[in-house]
């Protein structure tokens, strides 16, 4: 808890770990060299720092350090992986397999390629928990397939895909496998060798590192993956991504990976216990609430719940401290969570991820995503549970739908006046 309130939106971004910040600070000061300057100590020192970071990152996913290509973040990594493969392997084919629940960085990249006539894309459905079936991947692969891109853990519902099995399928079929592991890196075990991953997107700011620095793992052998770069220039990063390296960012990213690797098992257990505490408090005290995503195969810190008859944004408004609906004189802490409600997006469409799971629009509008992380405490969880329960009850008293449901009216049978 701090002055600004309780942060439980750790899928959006995470606070920087003080140990990460400490490691970065010298690189904003005395150590300012360009890592590509080969002719003097300023450059050598910067290069050494960047290479240490690269090794720390590689170690977290069991890769070789030269297989780590620095980017500005996971969105750029996704773009480079997908566009880079489609462009480079265009003589081999132009078919890409992905899933409907992928992050927009993957989906919109695929759509851009389709629009330009550069690729045809198969969007695989998911099951009711948001999982991709490796068998569906197998069936979708054709002679023309150059890439399969399936995320590790979903950013909204936390569902973990069986990427090891998918990797086995793609390896058997000789197709490259990319995974957007943005949410899974540092929180779940990852091994690019055991999982047969050829390309992997990651970013520092989801693992208590700085924003603006990410990486793409590019397999160097068995098979050696080739890419056409998006950004041309000085030939940095083996020619895959030109541009002067963000040394302070890389140092922070590396430190963040090292901390995740050292503490992963303990942290996962601790965060999972907090998540279960929140889950149990909400589900024992509120009726008609529904868990979105997989009950077990999900990120330890993810809890996505639909609070029937309570629109998500109105609940956010009550939680984020815009108001003080609790007793006068009591301090109300703002709580940061996020919503799958349409009203939080410009499109007025509710979450496409929940839609893909078969969650109805009426329930998708009532969903809230809690993202627990390294710095959350038991006290925070108890406070958040109390506030959520209070707000949901208050808003249900205001809800005509809750009233109708309690009167025994089947809401599906009502002839609604649609806008």
């Amino acid at each position, binding site marked *: 808890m701090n002055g600004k309130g309780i942060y439980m939106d750790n899928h959006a971004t995470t606070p920087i770990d003080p140990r990460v910040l400490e490691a970065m600070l010298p690189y904003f000061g005395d150590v300012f060299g360009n890592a590509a300057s080969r002719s003097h100590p300023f450059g050598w020192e910067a290069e050494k720092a960047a290479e240490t970071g690269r090794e720390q990152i590689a170690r977290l996913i069991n890769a070789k350090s030269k297989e780590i290509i620095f980017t500005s973040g996971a969105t750029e990594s996704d773009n480079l992986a997908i566009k880079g493969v489609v462009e480079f392997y265009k003589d081999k084919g132009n078919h890409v397999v992905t899933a409907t629940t992928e992050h927009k960085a993957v989906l919109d990249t695929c759509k851009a390629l389709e629009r330009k006539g550069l690729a045809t894309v198969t969007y695989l459905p998911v099951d009711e928990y948001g999982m991709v079936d490796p068998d569906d991947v197998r069936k979708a692969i054709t002679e023309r397939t150059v890439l399969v891109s399936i995320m590790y853990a979903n950013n909204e519902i936390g569902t973990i895909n069986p990427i090891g099995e998918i990797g086995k399928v793609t390896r058997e079929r000789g197709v490259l496998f990319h995974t957007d592991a943005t949410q899974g890196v540092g929180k779940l075990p990852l091994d690019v060798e055991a999982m047969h991953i050829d390309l992997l997107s990651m970013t520092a700011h989801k693992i208590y590192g700085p924003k603006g620095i990410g990486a793409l793992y590019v397999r160097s052998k068995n098979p050696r993956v080739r890419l056409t770069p998006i950004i041309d220039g000085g030939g940095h990063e083996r020619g895959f991504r030109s541009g002067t390296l963000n040394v302070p960012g890389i140092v922070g990213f590396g430190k963040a990976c090292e901390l995740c690797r050292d503490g992963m098992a303990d942290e996962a257990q601790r965060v999972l216990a907090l998540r279960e505490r929140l889950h149990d408090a909400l589900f024992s005290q509120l009726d008609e609430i529904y868990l979105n995503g997989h009950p077990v195969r999900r990120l330890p810190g993810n809890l996505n719940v639909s609070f029937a008859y309570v629109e998500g944004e109105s609940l956010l408004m009550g939680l984020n401290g815009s108001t003080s609906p609790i007793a006068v004189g009591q301090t109300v802490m703002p709580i940061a969570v996020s919503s799958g409600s349409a009203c939080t997006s410009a499109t007025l469409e509710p979450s496409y991820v929940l839609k893909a799971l078969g969650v109805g629009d009426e329930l998708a509008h009532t969903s809230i995503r809690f993202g627990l992380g390294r710095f959350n405490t038991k006290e925070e969880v108890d406070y958040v549970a109390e506030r959520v329960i209070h707000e949901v009850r208050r808003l249900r008293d205001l809800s005509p*739908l809750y009233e109708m449901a309690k009167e025994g009216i089947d809401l599906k049978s009502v002839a609604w006046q649609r806008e």
Partner: protein
Amino acid sequence: MAYSDKVIDHYANPRNVGSFSKDEPDVGTGIVGAPECGDVMKLQLKISDDGVVQDARFKTFGCGSAIASSSYVTELVKGKTVDEVMKIRNTHIVQELSLPPVKIHCSVLAEDGIKAAIADWKKKREPAKTENETARAS
């Protein structure tokens, strides 16, 4: 998104929350919107025989701006004649609550809601009128 002070005030202290019995002859009920669109408003007006709004109630499923829009119109309509209520435009709600463009549909829904309530009240009075006329004719 930052909310205006008036939206926050109506959200935190909604006016006239609740329900009248739908069966009361002097109550007009308007239910507009749909759950899958993320907004449902129930607006109820209690209207005297001479067509003046005596009281109003609402319940809303929707974002803070939808709650504020419906809370505000329940205040606005009280004491107005049916004809005056029919002249209320959503733009008035937009202005009063400083709603951003993305929230204009909330004000449209509130306007539709009070009009639906008046239509319901008028409809309830029609059969009564017909009965009187029938009585007179016989």
